[in-house]
Structures are given as structure tokens and as C-alpha cells.
């Protein structure tokens, strides 16, 4: 019996939106190598919507699949909608994650959140958007 669902395997084998964005509007980094996984999300915002989302991830199969899924879920959403993505909704979209992987690898929503907050705080300080 495989450990991961078909959906997780699909996102792990063919991750969407891998990479960095040049001059991103927001960056969010979570995790560290000690706990196993590390994710960095980059976002580009236009008219309050996530025009582009990219990520880089160091970690296990679940961590990579989670990042890919979050990027896919977030792209095109308004900032408010994107902030509502949770570890639970990501795991559901992935048709489940192994129990022991739920917490450590499921950092994607948090990283995205951090990138959005980074954007908002830059904007507040009088950035160009």
C-alpha cells in the first residue's frame, strides 16, 4: 500500500510553479532544515489578486507536493481568499497526507500567508503598489 495518495504523487512528480519570481511583491519563508522541511514562497500581486505564485522547497515528498498544491490553489485568488487557505484545506485537496506528515510538511499555507503579509507590510510602508 503506497504511503502517499495519487494526488500527492502527481504533485510530487510534476510540481507546479517551481521557481523564484524576480522582484517579487512578497516573500515568505518558513521551516528550517533541522525540522526537516523548508519552504520559500514568492508572490506577484496585481489589483489585489495573486497574479503569480512560485516556490522553492527543501524537504520530503509531502513538502514538495504541499508547496505545489498551495501555489495552484492560490494563483488568481484575491489576497483575502488566499489567506483562507489552511493546512487542512491543502491536505484535503491532496486527498490526504500521512498522519505523521500533516504537521511538519504542511507548511505551505503558512509560507504563502507570510508572503502576503510581507507584501501588505511593504505596501503600508509606502511601496509602489
Amino acid at each position, binding site marked *: 500500500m503506497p504511503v502517499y495518495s495519487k494526488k500527492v504523487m502527481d504533485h510530487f512528480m510534476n510540481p507546479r510553479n517551481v521557481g523564484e519570481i524576480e522582484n517579487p511583491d512578497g516573500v515568505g*519563508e518558513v521551516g528550517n*532544515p533541522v525540522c*526537516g522541511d523548508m519552504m520559500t514562497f514568492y508572490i506577484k500581486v496585481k489589483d489585489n489578486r495573486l497574479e503569480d505564485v512560485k516556490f522553492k522547497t*527543501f524537504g520530503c515528498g509531502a513538502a*514538495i507536493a504541499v508547496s505545489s498544491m498551495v501555489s495552484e490553489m492560490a494563483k488568481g485568488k484575491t489576497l483575502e481568499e488566499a489567506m483562507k487557505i489552511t493546512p487542512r484545506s491543502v491536505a484535503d485537496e491532496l486527498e490526504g497526507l500521512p498522519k505523521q506528515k500533516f504537521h*511538519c510538511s504542511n507548511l505551505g499555507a503558512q509560507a504563502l500567508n507570510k508572503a502576503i503579509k510581507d507584501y501588505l507590510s511593504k505596501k503600508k510602508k509606502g511601496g509602489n503598489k
Partner: protein
Amino acid sequence: MRKVYLDNAATTPLLPEVREAMLPYLGDVFGNPSSLHDWGDGAREAVASAREQVAALIGANADEMIFTGSGTESNNFAVKGLALAQQNKGKHVAVSAIEHFSVLHSARTLAKWGFEVSEIPVDKYGVVNPDDLRRSLRKDTVLVSVMHANGEVGTIEPIQELARITRERNIPFHTDAVATAGTTPVKVVELGIDALSLAGNQFYGPKGVGALWIRKGVRIMPLLDGGIQEEGRRAGTENVPAIVGLGKAAELAKIHMADRIKRLTPLRDRLLKELPGRIERVVVTGHPRNRLPGHASFCVEFIEGESMLMLLNSRGIAVSSGSACTSRALKASHVLIAMGLSHEIAQGSILFTLGIDNTNEDIDYVLETMPPIADRLRQMSPLYAKFSKTVKGGK
């Protein structure tokens, strides 16, 4: 797709000759070895001859062998049973920091029962220094356990030298030889030890069977009470087919050991030498020379072991990893950390453990498959991006 099994440390396949030897005991010869009738006789003889075969593998006497259900049981039995049997002499045990969990956690259980436990450190190759063993000994030390070889990094320990130290002080010495017995020459008298664990599925025998050798005269407290099987030291009806399989595997290992080592060593050395040549920033873990014949282990920097394992699996290659993500406990390998590797590097752990079916073509396939996989994961890795920007001056 080519299929290449390189996870023989997890388990070896069962040899056809071993399976053949086992079959009668899954069929007509079903008796209980404790029974006094003809049915019992057949099973009893089979167990007795397996005992001779396993003893011969390690140069021991048959009546010193106790059959168990696994290497893990043998280690539990040795650590707990030997310590408990001598607890009137003292309540201190010393084990190396890189022991298998079946030894380490047994020692921790002893600690809950009032014993004190010292963990003997290892050097960067995973070798126990005799001086460190000496330093960890006390007047009330009643047991030392150091593994013969480490299954995760392949390093072979200087058991003979270590056991000499404990013998001078009359402290029983146990070695977990699960990784070596049946694979490399193991002779209990030469090693100068008192107890040794081995397991069938490490040398082409069945799973679910192991053995513990205890030198005559060394006392051990049984962990399983019941009947008088195994001279009363391990109660429970014997797993006759598995014991027969273990015996046959031991016999074959003894006959073919030199040939197997001769075949495996150059394949291992190709991996150890050529993989770091094909991928930048790969470190060999464990001792460069004093290591198991079929064992090549590495840490690939900036990427994580489980994702490497999964991508290799998708290309038909089976390996394992000591990364935190692959362990059910989600903790970095205690072996790699004890050797002084950082958590970050330990995450990139990957091990190739070769078996008698592997060929030079298998190694070619691994060497060509692995670099694009490492590259693909590195393109995704924020750690690699940082490395490229700072160390390499940007791309």
C-alpha cells in the same frame, strides 16, 4: 524499466535454496519440536541441525545458540537479559551512541528500571575509540554493547580491541552483528566477546528469525517465560520453517562468503568513488575503507533523502535514507548526528546496500540516474539557491 534493488540492509531476498529447504516444514513436517512422537522428532532434528549450521557460521558451539524472532529480539534479550542477570554486581551499562534502536531503546528501558546508561561517542567515521570506551566504564558496569558494523553508514567497529578492554575487567561484551553475520567473517572466539546477535533476513534467509549467541557460563535472564524451549532461555514454540531457513542461509553464507565479498566490494567502491564525481557536494558517510562490503552511503547536500528515494523508486531503483522525513519519528538519524554531521546535511542521507544479484550494469544505471534526480531537486531547493548565490557568486 530496469529494476535495481539496493536496499539489502532493509532485507535481502530469500535464496531459492533456502526456500526449498523450508518447504517441508510448511507442509508434512509440521510437528512441534517439544513433542515426543515421530512428528516431534522430525521437527526437533531440523532445529538441531539448523543450530549446528548457524553456530558453524560464527565459529560457536551449537549449545550456545538461542533462536529468537528477529535481530531486534536478540538485541533486546542481550541488553536487558545480561544486565538483569548481573544487577547484583552493579547497575551501569555502556552502549555506543550509534547502536540500532533495539539496543539503544533497550538501554533506555533499563534506565527506567533503575540502571544508569552511558553512551559511548564515535568519531566522524562512526568508529568507537577504545579510549572512549575505557572512559565510559565504571566499577559498577555490568554490560557493554557495541555493534559489529553500523547498517546505516557501513562502518565496521574494532570489536576485538574493544572487547579486550572489557575482558580485563570481567565485564560482559555484547555485539550486534546483524549487519555482519553472514556477510563478513565473524568468529566469536577471535572477537573475544560474550554475546552476539544475528538475523536471518540480512543474509538471504527468512524474516522473523534471529539468533543470540551467548558464551557458555555467561548468565542471562530470560525475557519470555513459559516452556523449556531453548533450554528455558526463550520460551515459545519454535518457528521451525524459519529456523530451518536461517540454518540453510548460514550454511550457504559460510560456503559463498569469500566469493560474495569479492563480487560486492568493487561494485561498492565504484559507487563510493564515482557518485561524488558526478554530483557536486556529496559526502561519503561512514569509514572510507573499514566498511561493509556492499555498503555505500552518502549525504547529498541541499536536498532531502525521502524525495531522492521516491524519485529513484520512480526509475526502478530501491534505496533507503536516514533523513528525518523517512523516519516515522521524524527525527534526524542519531547515527549521523553522533558522527558530527549537521541536521541540514543529515537530511540528505541516502544509502545503497548491494546484494549478490547486483551487477556492474546496475551501478551504471544508478550512476546515470542519480545526477539528474539530484539536479531536479536542487532546482527546487531554497538551500541550493542560497548556496549558488553566495558560494558560487550567482548564476
